[in-house]
């Protein structure tokens, strides 16, 4: 299988935003937008769903905290009870600081790993940059030509209104 892609590059954030917005209004299928920085409002223009990563953060934080509270009780009260200065076995207030630290550690590190996983960010991975300059000063809008009604010439004219600096069609082989 292969799919036909339509690429338009821009130099300015507002052009990229406008073109993305227009593409969505025309009902084009937006494959992705590439940008040198996180453009505010782009997620609305592309109508992306909010990320679910906060759930990973919340759940792992909860698991970390629960585990740590259990672990502190188990080590100091059950596995090797050690009387330190006559302090009570049930020292929950004294267990809070370490519990908090472990919660933050687990929540933070696992969120980042989950992010790497869902975005397939892997050490040493070869980047597939559709055009040069994306990490410097180019914004790129990639559309998929879904059916015969997609008229590349009209779309090209549309993007020229948004000062597109480079417009091209590509055929991408998909597995």
């Amino acid at each position, binding site marked *: 299988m292969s799919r036909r892609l339509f690429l338009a590059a821009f*130099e*300015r*954030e*507002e052009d990229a*935003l406008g073109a993305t*917005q227009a593409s969505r209004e025309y009902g084009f299928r937006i494959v992705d*937008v*590439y940008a*040198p*920085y*996180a*453009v*505010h*409002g*782009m*997620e*609305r223009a592309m109508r*992306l769903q*909010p*990320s679910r*990563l*906060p759930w990973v*953060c919340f759940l792992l934080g909860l698991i970390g905290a629960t585990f740590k509270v259990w672990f*502190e009780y188990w*080590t*100091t009260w059950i*596995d*090797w009870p*050690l009387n*330190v200065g006559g302090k009570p076995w049930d020292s929950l207030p*004294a*267990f809070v*600081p*370490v519990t*908090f*630290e*472990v919660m*933050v*550690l687990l*929540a*933070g*590190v696992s969120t*980042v790993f989950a*992010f*790497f996983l*869902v*975005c*397939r*960010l892997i*050490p*040493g*991975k*070869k*980047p*597939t*940059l559709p055009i040069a300059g*994306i*990490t*410097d*000063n180019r914004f790129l809008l990639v559309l998929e030509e879904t059916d015969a009604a997609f008229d590349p010439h009209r779309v090209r004219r549309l993007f020229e209104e948004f000062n597109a600096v480079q417009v091209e069609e590509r055929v991408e082989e998909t597995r």
Partner: protein
Amino acid sequence: MAVIYSVLRRPLIEGDKSLAQVTEDVCSAVASRPTRMWWTAFLTAFTVLLMGTAAVSYQLATGIGTWGLNKTVGWAFDITNFVFWIGIGHAGTLISAILFLLRQKWRTSVNRSAEAMTLFAVMCAGLFPVIHMGRPWLAHWMFPYPNTRGTLWINFRSPLVWDAFAIFTYFTISLTFWYVGLIPDLATLRDRCQSGLRRWLYGFFSLGWDGSYRTWQRYETVYTLLAGLATPLVVSVHTIVSWDFATAIIPGWHTTIFPPYFVAGAIFSGMAMVLTLMIIVRKVMRLEKYITPRHVDAMCKIVVATSGMVGLAYATEFFTAVYSRNPYEEFVFLNRALGPLAWGYWIMVACNVLIPHLLWLKKLRANLAVVFPISIFVDIGMWFERFIIIVTSLERDFLPSSWAGYAPTAIEAATLVGSFGLFFTCFLLFCRFLPVIAIAEVKGVLSYGKNTQGVHS
């Protein structure tokens, strides 16, 4: 093309930069050959580091008897340096996390180097407790793991154990935060290098970043989450450090004001160190357009505010001592102000409470030749604060016959100086190999290419 400046707000980045110019300005410093000035600074720092290493090696081989401690003052120089360095680190997290949550856009010019400063400061701080153990090869005993001694677990009710966890978490989260922020910039550097080891390294660590907005969206989410986690974390870390003292029953330490007092002091000292470094970096690396007097002004305001808090804490301590009518508490504070270490106390007051208030004046905040020495005074004052808190509470204890003084030995002094060597060696290497300005974040706050009406459809 006409440049339009808002009457109300000056742009954060001067010089009306385009995106490509920002990339060029920040990356060219990394790509060019190191200057003679860099080499001089690096070799000096590295020599100092080697000297510190020699001192520590000697101390490890000989024992902690090489320190000036005695049976009355059993905790002094080492822990002072630990608290000092941890405090320095706090400003980096304040800038990267708290100011991010508060949407303070000026942070983008300084957050990268402030976070790097945090990492290196926490590294320096972490060294001291490890050295202090006397047998650092047993440092892993601080962490709970199944062992052949019982299994004998660590005491989770001890503030020193809390501290170990706090520092470990703080370092790990700061490193993660810093690295996540670096990924897009590493990709920018990767795409500028043609070939060679550098390209390979930048490519390896940029994880195949391609600037896809789907990734950017998640990246923003992760960044916000990390900021949300780091904000209470940074408060917890210095709170726990203060508990090392506050949970003891020593007069002068056993007080509930310690956590907020320490956190404010940490941000105070850290912000001063950020100022010290940034004023040098902007000049040496020619980043005057990015780190502008406006950034210095904002940081000076934080210094003034936290200086006020620290001053208030000093006054409150005295008030509490008098109001409590506890003779030991009263004595400790009189001893601080009038005792054998009174000189140190008054250096502290001068540097932390009096001198920073010069920065109320806008004219002085705008004059870097004034701000720079003030920032150094604050660094010194905050070091003395920890030294005074620790030593004056111990030197004259409940039993006058056991009163003793304390003076650091050459080995201890060399260890402190050596930690500065480590800090600056790391910082100089960072300036050489990584972008000192968060390129992608600065691009986001430029006025370039943005809808001038400020309204996105």
